[in-house]
């Protein structure tokens, strides 16, 4: 598979700094609503920085450019994180940040295709993204379009049977243009994912389903870059999965300590504190 040089989003801003900026914007949006899936956003920011500023071929000014890599947000509630990444990438104007979750906003609390430029699918009903990705990957091959399909999903979605239908299908159809990203933060609504319905050993399952599987520290930018490069360059005619072990609320230690972080409760006076803690270490 050939990799076409990125068309606009590369810059001399470090990926670490991008991740920091995504975290900042997510916290600012959380403050707008006084709530939100900020824990997930902070946890997945490093993954998104690598996606949007290293891996994906995108044109910020033309989110529907036919040559773009498709980025599917299967986990609709992570929308806050994606909006932050979209703003950082220039797909959405930063001025809209304060409209997050408001009436008539282009940024609803759960990601939907009809609301937001760059949002490829309506996510949120978990276990849908990977199957849609299978169809997109088949369609791209039909069109001889070399673009890749990235599907961002959660560890909780590994409990959905539809995920495994899609996993089997992707492998059967030899979809080497499909890359699944599993945000493994070990948290879901009722507690730790591994205690709700364990999907371990996760990489072994994907491998058994015919995928090229990697598991990395999802808060280590260097490891993520290497994994995304390896996923893209892997020579096998098979789909690829990157299981990213992430830490909820990463970057804001006092929130990291908090229990039940699926829907992290942040007191009104804590948003500013979270920002200042985050800003104590601004990456170069």
């Amino acid at each position, binding site marked *: 598979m050939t990799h076409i040089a990125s068309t606009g989003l590369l810059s001399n801003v470090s990926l670490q700094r991008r991740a920091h900026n995504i975290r900042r914007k997510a916290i600012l949006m959380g403050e707008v609503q006084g709530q939100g899936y900020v824990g997930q956003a902070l946890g997945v920011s490093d993954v998104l920085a690598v996606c949007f500023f290293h891996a994906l071929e995108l044109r910020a000014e033309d989110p529907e450019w036919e040559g773009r890599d498709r980025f599917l947000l299967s986990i609709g509630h992570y929308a806050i994180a994606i909006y932050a990444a979209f703003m950082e990438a220039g797909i959405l104007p930063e001025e809209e940040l304060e409209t997050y979750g408001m009436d008539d906003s282009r940024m609803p609390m759960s990601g939907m295709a009809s609301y937001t430029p760059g949002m490829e699918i*309506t996510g949120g009903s978990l276990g849908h993204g990977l*199957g849609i990705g299978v169809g*997109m990957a*088949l369609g791209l091959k039909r069109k001889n379009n070399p673009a890749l399909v990235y599907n961002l999903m959660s560890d909780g979605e590994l409990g959905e049977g539809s995920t495994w239908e899609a996993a089997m*299908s992707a492998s059967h159809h030899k979809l080497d243009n499909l890359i699944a990203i599993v945000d493994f933060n070990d948290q879901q609504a009722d507690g730790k994912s591994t205690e709700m319905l364990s999907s371990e050993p996760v990489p072994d399952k994907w491998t058994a389903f015919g995928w090229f599987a990697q598991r990395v520290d999802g808060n280590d930018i260097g490891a993520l870059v290497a994994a995304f490069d390896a996923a893209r360059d892997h020579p096998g005619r098979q789909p690829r999965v990157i299981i990213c072990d992430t830490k909820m609320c990463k970057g804001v230690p006092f929130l990291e300590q908090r229990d039940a972080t699926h829907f992290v409760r942040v007191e009104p006076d804590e948003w500013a504190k979270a920002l200042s803690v985050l800003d104590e270490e601004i990456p170069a």
Partner: protein
Amino acid sequence: MTAAARARRYEARKVPETRQATSAMIASLAAEGYDAAPAPFGHALSDLANTDERIVGLSADLSKYTDLHIFAQKHPDRFYQMGMAEQVLMSAAAGLAHEGFIPFATTYAVFASRRAYDFICMAIAEENLPVKIVCALPGLTTGYGPSHQATEDLAIFRGMPNLVIVDPCDAVDVAQMVPEMAAHDGPVYARLLRGNVPSVLRRHKPDYRFRLGKAQMIREGADVLVVSSGLMTMRALDAATELARDGIEVAVLHSPTIKPLDRDTILAEAGKGRLLVTAENHTVIGGLGEAVAATLLRAGVTPTFRQIGLPDAFLEAGALPTLHDMYGLSTKAVIAQIKGWL
């Protein structure tokens, strides 16, 4: 299990006087005195694909039983066998539609409506994607029992926004609905008649053409108006022919588009003072009959109203002719019901 159900368990069923084998398929309908066309859906889709590059076909291990194998033979590189996995069947169809294709996805009506609902709803309908879902064994068209009898598929799907619903009567309907479905910019669910499908409507109305969204008078009559869809239009027409011999004039308004219903035509015909009977191959809950009833009531048009349809029950297994007699869908049963209401 309730006490009543337990008491009924293993109870010997009454053996019909003429024993008939369990009917797997509706193909036997072709034997009802009409000419039949083989696999009208498969041939129509193959023809359409010759002129429209966007057409692709997918099936969940039921291409042979939805006539999609005809398309697969003629356009092998445009057919995707998705295996016995209805959730990814619908999701992948959505993905192909995202990439500009017009996917026709086939399975049985029970599996699409019961198993794949969320995927049709959120991956397809919410985004108004042009996926065409074509499903065999609608209503009571198999004797396999509730696992295969989609007696409530219309009720399930009618509540889904954006989804157009079609219940064709015969080979002409099935063949002609295909290009109209493809031309509609959004999702469509169609109930399929497969195999050797009778050609009914042109026997009664030689210039008949299927028109998406339109109900059409197939036969005029002064005493009774039957509003029907699917194979029940055939039964209504056959019943009307018989009833005419007894001096009972029955009009038949064929309404193959269940949603959106052709409100104007139905209201115009319903306002003519006749007994109005709806006839559908579906439970009386949530299908054509209740859709017509609501349309009438909302408009303040209140003819005497009766429903022919399946009971709110899990149906028996057995031979289709037996079951259609038992549950009121056979021509004989339609005649008896209409006579009883006059």
